């Protein structure tokens, strides 16, 4: 981001000031702790958002699936008389349009 010239000049001046060591150390520590606080806030916000998505999004989907008796992923709970569990393979064609997609 390009700042107006007068501000740039002021900033350059500030940057060129040699701060005493204790002040430099204080500035570094403030930077370090700001970064840590930022990361912690990010984690908290992300966790809260993901919790909401999980509880509401995944939870409602689960509820809907149960209501309509929808089975996913072919879970299995005991032997059956099927001759084979091999399924016909799908989506393995060298079609360039298909290959551009991630589905």
């Amino acid at each position, binding site marked *: 981001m390009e700042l107006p010239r007068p501000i740039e000049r002021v900033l350059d001046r500030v940057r060129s000031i040699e701060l005493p060591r204790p002040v430099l150390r204080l500035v570094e520590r403030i930077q370090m702790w700001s970064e840590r606080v930022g990361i912690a806030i990010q984690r908290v916000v992300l966790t809260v958002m*993901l919790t909401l998505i999980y509880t509401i999004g995944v939870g409602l989907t689960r509820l809907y699936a149960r209501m309509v008796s929808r089975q996913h992923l072919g879970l299995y709970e005991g032997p059956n008389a099927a001759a084979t569990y*091999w399924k016909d393979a799908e989506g393995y064609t060298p079609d360039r349009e298909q290959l551009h997609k991630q589905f």
Partner: protein
Amino acid sequence: MTVLGLSCYYHDASAAIIRDGIVVAAVQEERFDRERYSPVFPIQAVNFCLQQAGITIYDIDEVAFYEKMYLKFERTILAHVIGYPFTFNNFVETMPLWLKDRLAVSFAVREELSFKKPVLYVKHHLSHAASAFLVSPFERAAILTVDGVGEYACATWGVGNGTDIQIKKEQHYPHSLGLLYSIVTAFLGFHVFTGEGKVMALAEFGEPDHLDHFKKIIDLKDDGSFRLDTRYFSFNRGAKMHNEKFEELFGAPRGPGEPMTDRHHNIAASLQRMTEEIVLRMARHVHKATGERYLCLAGGVSLNVTANSRIRSEGQFEDLYIQPAAGDAGAALGAAAYVYHTVGGNPRVQPMTTCALGPEFSNHSVEVLLRNRRAKFQKLDRAALVAETARRIAANQVVGWFKGRSEFGPRALGNRSILANPADPTMRDRLNLAIKKREGFRPFGASVLLEHVSDYFEFEGDSPYMLLVANIRPDKLGSIPAVTHVNNTSRIQTLTSERDGVYYELVREFYAQTGLPMILNTSFNRDEPIVNTPAEALKCFDESGIDCLVINDYVVDKATR
């Protein structure tokens, strides 16, 4: 035409370049960032591949990625729906990875590589299939891929013909042999990805007393397809993937540091026998269904050398080709090969006859390093180097051997190896405990001259990538204790002059000096990825009990440093 293949964001991130039908370079990112099974975007691997090919990113015609991430994400979400609410921890832990990296592959390619064209996404198991078939010596062959899981598929089979690959059938998550093996690996107290090989080795110490228990939780059909009874497992629910019902059958899991007991050995043995039975039935079914003479294997389960050997001897095929980087690292190569040959319509030029596709270093750079480190070294010509190294190995010294281009895949095959005398009865313990700092039960493989392999092993034919085991001949038992596993087998790599060059000469010289046509070969590393640079080799040499280091044409002796 030049195609760059990529794999990343799960494990074994890697890059590979195919140019005009030749595999120019392929390497795993872990060799550069020194994190085992590194999952990160393989920028360093890509940079190396471009450098090796003598090109820039602007010379790349296509970029191929090894799986379809959105499809995989769909399967992941479905697993969370099914496991709700017990998968909460896993959801919160993994979703940031999806949002940041895995769903943004195109963005990463554009930003990290400055490659503006659309990326081509090859399905996971198709990448595996291509990594084996399209670089094999077979014009046509059956293909079998078995691993943990790709998008949905955990195993597939099909047929390859010329540049065409037809995947016929697949088996879907969660009914996965790779996952089952990993679950039991964790149950036995090992880390997933690093522990499966240990479980395979441990299996030979036990009896398959728990085979009936495995048959109870696996409904296996004659054609090798199977279902896991999911009532015994807890997928996506946290670190533990088995549950109390599983423990009722097999007992309590082994805790970290807990001593190994016969029960653990027997569970490992039972799992291994079950795995062999499953893949053998799959192979036989594929043979019957396709009528093909040859079989190509890939996918992480193809690193199970014992199962591979059973397929070779009992699978009814005339010959096998196993991709040396059979895991997800090889899938990068497979994706590139698929786009180059099958999509691009380019003919196959030559099979991949070596997996030495990584970096190599000049004598000049090695000498500069040695001088800077004040190492006392000597430079020898080829014949003298071979003779001196063979002499040291015959004198029961452990030699670090760093030559040529690094190998692609998990095996060291004579370019980044630690070599030793297979006849020394103390060598296995010394290597395991003192040098490599690993469990004492882990066996070592042997590099043996092809023309003499049947002198010592009940084996005929070629095993260039150390992905097969062989029984040691009864009259030779006791002669090579360092490479003899508890069940009197050894994992073998066969050497030829054309393929293995100076490494072949070394073993031939060792044979001339000792009468043994083989040496012990293990990977040049110690609790880290295989060494990549001379500096890393020197560091490993310094910090371990390796007696002597050979880098290119230089011999570095610890005693003289």
